[in-house]
C-alpha cells in the first residue's frame, strides 16, 4: 500500500519536476544579455542581498521561496519567541527523492546575537541559492537529492526587530527581549539608552575638557584618538548616548536583557558568576528550547553552522578548556579537513578553536550541538577588517583607522554621524557623534553579497561531506546443504563519519543498522578483517547487524549465514546521521 503511494508520488513529482525544469531553462533563455556564472539569471524570488531584513521581511521571504519552489522548500515555525514571534526554519531538499526526514541534515542558524544581523541574510541566501540554482547546477541537484538543509534565518527574532527598529549601538541588543532586573533595584529595564537626537542610532557622547585624554584625529574629524603622553587632550568621552533615567547616578545601566542567549545551552552550563550572560538554567529562554527540541526530533542532523559576527573566524569547539577531553584526534582531523578548506574559501577568515584562540564560553550553542548531539559544528564569525582593503589589519577593531578610511574612500561618509552639540540634562553642553549601529560589525552592502556566497558555499561543502552511505558490493555463495553466505560491503564516500569518536564514547546515537530482509537468517557477523577472517558474531537479532560507526572514506563489511537462497532478500542500511538506503540483494 505504502509502496504504491511512494511510487505514484515519485512519478507525479518527477513529471511536474520535468516541466519545471523545462520552464526554468526557457525563462533563462528569455533574459537579455548574459547570465553571470554562479548566479541565477532570473530568480523567481527577487532578492536584494545588499541590505538587512526585519522579521516580517524574513517571513515573507520564507513564504515566497516555498511558493516558488514547493518541491524544494518547506518552511515551518518551530516555536515562539519570548514576545511571541515565530521562529522559522526552512527545510530545503528535493522532496521528490527519498524520505527527506531520513537524509543526512545540515543545520544553519543565524542572528542568535541580534546585533549580528548578517547571519540571517547569509542563511537566507543559502536557501535562496540552493532553490534558484537547483535546475541549472547538477551538483546542487545531487546535493538536494542526498541531503536536507534546515535553515533558521534568525533564532532571536524579538531582538532582531528591536535592533533594527529601535535606537541601538552596534554592540547593543546582543541579548533577547525577556526583561530582567539587572541592577537589583526591583525595577526592570528602567534606564535604557536614549536616542538624544532621534536619528535611530545610539552613538558616543563627548565633552570638551581640559583634563580629557582624547583629541580629534586631524586626518579624520569623525575619529577620536588618545592624546600622546605629555600632550594635552581636548575631550573626555562619556559613553554611549543616554541620560540617567532612574536617578541612581548611572547612565544606561539597566538596559533590556543583559543576558546572552548563547550562554543558555545544555552543555557545560554554568551560572552567571562563572559565565556572564547565563540565566537560571540552560533553556531558560523559549528560543533556545525550541532549537534544542528541533535537534532532538531531527537526529539526521549531521552537520551544523551557527553564524555570528565579528572577526573573520571559522570556529570550532570546545568553548571551555575542560571539554578538550571530548575532542579526539580523529574528530579533530575531520574538523581540520573541513576547516582548512574553509580558510581557502573565505579569504581573511581563520580556522580556530573557541577556548584557545577566542575566549572561554560555558553553555554555548555550538558546544551543545557538537557535544550533546555529536554533530560536527562550525560557527563562523562573519565580517573582518580584511575585507575593507583585502589585506590583514595591523590592529584590532577599536584602534584601527581602516574603518574611517574605508568610510571616507568607499562610503563617502555614510557610516558616521558627525559630531554635533547637545544640551544634556546631567552632563551639560556635550557633543554626540560616531559610527552608526549598522557599521563595523555588519557588512556594508556591497561586501555582503560576496561574503554571503562564500559562506553559503562553505556550508554547502560542509553538507556535502556529511556521510553518504553506498553499498559497494554484495555477494551470495552457497556453503553446502541449503545454506548460503551473504556478504555486503557498505562504504561512506564522504569525510564525516556516521558517528564522531565522542558519539561512540558516550553512545549518543544508536549504532548503524545493516539489515537483511526477506531471508531466514541463521546468524550474522561483522567482518573486521576480510582477508584474515576476523569476525564478531551478533547473537541478538542477527538479521540486523549493528555497526558502531562507518568512518569517513572507509567501508564496513557484514556477513550472514542464511537458510535457503536469499534471491528475494533486500539489503537495508539504516543510519541516523548517514541516511536510509534500501536495495535488492543483487545476485551474481
Amino acid at each position: 500500500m505504502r509502496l504504491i503511494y511512494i511510487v505514484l508520488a515519485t512519478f507525479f513529482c518527477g513529471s511536474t519536476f520535468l516541466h519545471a525544469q523545462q520552464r526554468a531553462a526557457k525563462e533563462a533563455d528569455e533574459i537579455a544579455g548574459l547570465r553571470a556564472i554562479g548566479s541565477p539569471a532570473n530568480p523567481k524570488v527577487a532578492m536584494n542581498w545588499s541590505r538587512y531584513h526585519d522579521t516580517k521581511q524574513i517571513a515573507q521571504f520564507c513564504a515566497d521561496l516555498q511558493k516558488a519552489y514547493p518541491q524544494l522548500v518547506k518552511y515551518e515555525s518551530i516555536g515562539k519567541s519570548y514576545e511571541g514571534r515565530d521562529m522559522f526554519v526552512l527545510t530545503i531538499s528535493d522532496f521528490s527523492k527519498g524520505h527527506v526526514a531520513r537524509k543526512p541534515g545540515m543545520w544553519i542558524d543565524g542572528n542568535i546575537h541580534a546585533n549580528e544581523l548578517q547571519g540571517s541574510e547569509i542563511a537566507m541566501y543559502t536557501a535562496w541559492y540552493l532553490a534558484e540554482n537547483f535546475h541549472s547546477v547538477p551538483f546542487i541537484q545531487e546535493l538536494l537529492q542526498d541531503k536536507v538543509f534546515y535553515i533558521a534565518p534568525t533564532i532571536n527574532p524579538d531582538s532582531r526587530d528591536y535592533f533594527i527598529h529601535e535606537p541601538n549601538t552596534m554592540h547593543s541588543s546582543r541579548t533577547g527581549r525577556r526583561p530582567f532586573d539587572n541592577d537589583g533595584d526591583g525595577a526592570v529595564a528602567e534606564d535604557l539608552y536614549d536616542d538624544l537626537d532621534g536619528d535611530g542610532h545610539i552613538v558616543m557622547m563627548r565633552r570638551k575638557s581640559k583634563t580629557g585624554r582624547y583629541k580629534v584625529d586631524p586626518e579624520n574629524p569623525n575619529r577620536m584618538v588618545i592624546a600622546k603622553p605629555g600632550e594635552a587632550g581636548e575631550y573626555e568621552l562619556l559613553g554611549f548616548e543616554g541620560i540617567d533615567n532612574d536617578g541612581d547616578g548611572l547612565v544606561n545601566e539597566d538596559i533590556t536583557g543583559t543576558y546572552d542567549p548563547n550562554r543558555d545551552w545544555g552543555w557545560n552550563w554554568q551560572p552567571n558568576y562563572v559565565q556572564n550572560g547565563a540565566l537560571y538554567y540552560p533553556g531558560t529562554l523559549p528560543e533556545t528550547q525550541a532549537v534544542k527540541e528541533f535537534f532532538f526530533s531531527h537526529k539526521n542532523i549531521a552537520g551544523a553552522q551557527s553564524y555570528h559576527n565579528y572577526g573573520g573566524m571559522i570556529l570550532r569547539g570546545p568553548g571551555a578548556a575542560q571539554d578538550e577531553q571530548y575532542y579526539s584526534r580523529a574528530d579533530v582531523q575531520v574538523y581540520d579537513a573541513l576547516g582548512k578548506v574553509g580558510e581557502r574559501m573565505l579569504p581573511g577568515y581563520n580556522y580556530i578553536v573557541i577556548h584557545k584562540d577566542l575566549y572561554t564560553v560555558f553553555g554555548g550553542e555550538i558546544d551543545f550541538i557538537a557535544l550533546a548531539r555529536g554533530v560536527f559544528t562550525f560557527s563562523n564569525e562573519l565580517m573582518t577588517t580584511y575585507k575593507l582593503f583585502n589585506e590583514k589589519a595591523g590592529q584590532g577593531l577599536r584602534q584601527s583607522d581602516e574603518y574611517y578610511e574605508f568610510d571616507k574612500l568607499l562610503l563617502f561618509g555614510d557610516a558616521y554621524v558627525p559630531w554635533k552639540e547637545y544640551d544634556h540634562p546631567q552632563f551639560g553642553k556635550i557633543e554626540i557623534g560616531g559610527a552608526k549601529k549598522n557599521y563595523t560589525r555588519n557588512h556594508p552592502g556591497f561586501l555582503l553579497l560576496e561574503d554571503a556566497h562564500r559562506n553559503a558555499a562553505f556550508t554547502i561543502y560542509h553538507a556535502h561531506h556529511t556521510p553518504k552511505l553506498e553499498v559497494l558490493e554484495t555477494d551470495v555463495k552457497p556453503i553446502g546443504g541449503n545454506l548460503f553466505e551473504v556478504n555486503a560491503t557498505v562504504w561512506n564516500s564522504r569525510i564525516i563519519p556516521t558517528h564522531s569518536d565522542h558519539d561512540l564514547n558516550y553512545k549518543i546515537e544508536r549504532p548503524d543498522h545493516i539489515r537483511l530482509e526477506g531471508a531466514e537468517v541463521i546468524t550474522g557477523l561483522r567482518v573486521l578483517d576480510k582477508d584474515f577472517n576476523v569476525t564478531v558474531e551478533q547473537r541478538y537479532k542477527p538479521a540486523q547487524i549493528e555497526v558502531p560507526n562507518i568512518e569517513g572514506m572507509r567501508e564496513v563489511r557484514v556477513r550472514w549465514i542464511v537458510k535457503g537462497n536469499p534471491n528475494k532478500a533486500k539489503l537495508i542500511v539504516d543510519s541516523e546521521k548517514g541516511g536510509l538506503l534500501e536495495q535488492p540483494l543483487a545476485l551474481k
Partner: protein
Amino acid sequence: MKISIFLFFVLLPFAGRSQLNYPTYGELTEEIRAISKHAGGAASSIGRSYGGEDISVIKIQSGAEKKPTLLIVAGIDGKHPAGIISALDVAKNILNLPQDSLAAILSKRSVWIVPVLNPDAYKRNVASNRWLSGNARVIDNDRDGRLNEDPAEDLNRDGVIAQMRVRRKGGKYVAHSDHNDYLIEADRSKGQEGIYELYIEGIDADKDGLFGEDGDGGVNIDRNFTYDYRPFTAESGDYAASEPETRALVDFIFDHPQIASVLHFGLGNNLTEAESFDARKAGERIISSWSAKDVDAAKFVSSVYNRLTANLGVAPKSVSHGGGFSNTAYYHLGKYSFVTPVWWPAVQDTSQIGKASGAKNGDDMFLQWIATNKLKGAILPWAKINHADFPQHSVEVGGVVEVFKNNPPKEFLQLATRAHTDFVVALLHNMARLEFETPVVTPLGDDIFRIDIRVVNTGVLATYPEIADKIKHVSKMKAVCSLQKNQKFLSGKRLQLYPTLAGGASQQFSWLIQGKGSVEITAGCPTAGEQTIKINL
C-alpha cells in the same frame, strides 16, 4: 485504552499496597489537598510533570504578606517515597502545633512544602510496587537505540522485583554469615571464594550481558539539576534541566525571592556532618565548596540537627551523584540548602554490627534492623526457578528488595518525622530576620537633612548565604530612597546594594537630602524581611 484506564483505577487500591503501607497516588493527592485546606489555602501547583501531573505546593503561612520562607522539597528521586510521607507528616505536625506557637512562627516566617516534585515516579511506582527513580519520560537507559527493551521482570510472580543469583564458578558473591538470604561480595583478600553471580530479577532480553538494564523509569530529577551535572550518565537526562520538573522548581525559587532556605527530604545528608570548607575549591572559577562563613552557618545548623535527631541513631553518610537539587540550591540558586533522608535503619544494640566479614557497615545496620523488627518482605528467601539464559545452572530468586534500604513501612517513620518537625521549627526560628530601628533625622539647617537608619539581623543565619552575592538574579540587601521632585541627594543614591548581613550584625543606611517633604525608604531583602518607611522632612 479506556478499559485499561478503568481497570487501572479499579485495581489501584489493591495493586498499590505493598508491605510499605504507603498511600496510593489517589490517596496521596487527596491528602495533599486536605493538608493544604487545613493550612488555610487551596493546593496550588508549581507546574506539571513530564507525565502531566500537577506538582503541588502546600503553603503554611499567615496572611498574604511575603515573609522569609523555608521551602521543604521531597519526592525528587522516585526511590525515596519515605521523604514524601515524611514531608506530609511534618506538614501535619506543624499545623497541629499549639495554636499560639504556630501563630508566633507564622507571624515572622512561612513554610512551604513541595511534597512530590516527581509525581510521575510515585504514581507509577506505587501502582507497580517497583520503586524507580525517574519521571514518565521514556528513555533509552543503555543507549542502544531501543527503548525499554530489557526491563527487570518478576520471574517468580511474587509481586516484587528482588534479586537473582546464579550458582556458577567465577561468581563473586557469598551468603552473609549471619543473614543467610543476603549476599555479600566474597573477600578474596582473605582467601574467600565466591559461589554466586548476582543480578536483578530479570532476563537478558537484548543479549547484551546485562539484566533488566533498560526498563521503565525516565529521568531521575535528582540527577537533572545544573550543579555538577553529568551528561551521558544513567538517568541524568539529555542535558541539565531538560525536565519540566527541574525547571518548575528552579523557576519557582527564582520567582519567589522570599525563599531563604531549602530543606530536601531525599537521598543525601549534609546535616549529620556539616558542609566543610575547602579554600582551593571555594576560590576556583567554578566554585565547589561552601564559603567559610556559610560553612559556619552550616555547622551551627548541624549542631541543632544532631541534638534534635540524637534518638534516631547514626545516619548514613551521603555520596554526591552530580546534578542533584541540594547542591544546585546552594551553588546556583544561592540558598542555604540542607538535605536529609529523614529515616535510616538504626538499632539500639549495635554490638553485632560490622562483625561479619565483607559486609559494609550500612548493610549490617540494615540487616540488623530488619532482624530486630522481624520485618517481612524486605529480604526474601531464595526460591529456585528455571531460567532460559542459564540452562545449565541453578538459578534462584530472592534476596534484598532494594526499596526497603531507604524506605521503611509507614509506621516506622513517626519517630523520625517528629524529630524532623522539631528541627524544622528550630530552623525557622534561626533564620535571618531584619529589625529596623526608628530612623533618625538630623536637620542640618537650610532644608538639608541627614537620615540614618539602622537595621539588625536578629536571626542566627545570615540574610542569605554569601554565595548569593555572586548570583545576579538573587535579590540582594538593598536600600531604595525615593525623593519628591523638589528634593535632591547631597550624599547617597536612590539605590544602594549591600552584601549579605550576618546573624547578629547591623547595617547603617544614611542619606544627605536637600529639600523638604516626605521621602520613602524601602530597605532589607526578601529572605529576611523588607520594610517601607515614610519620613517627613
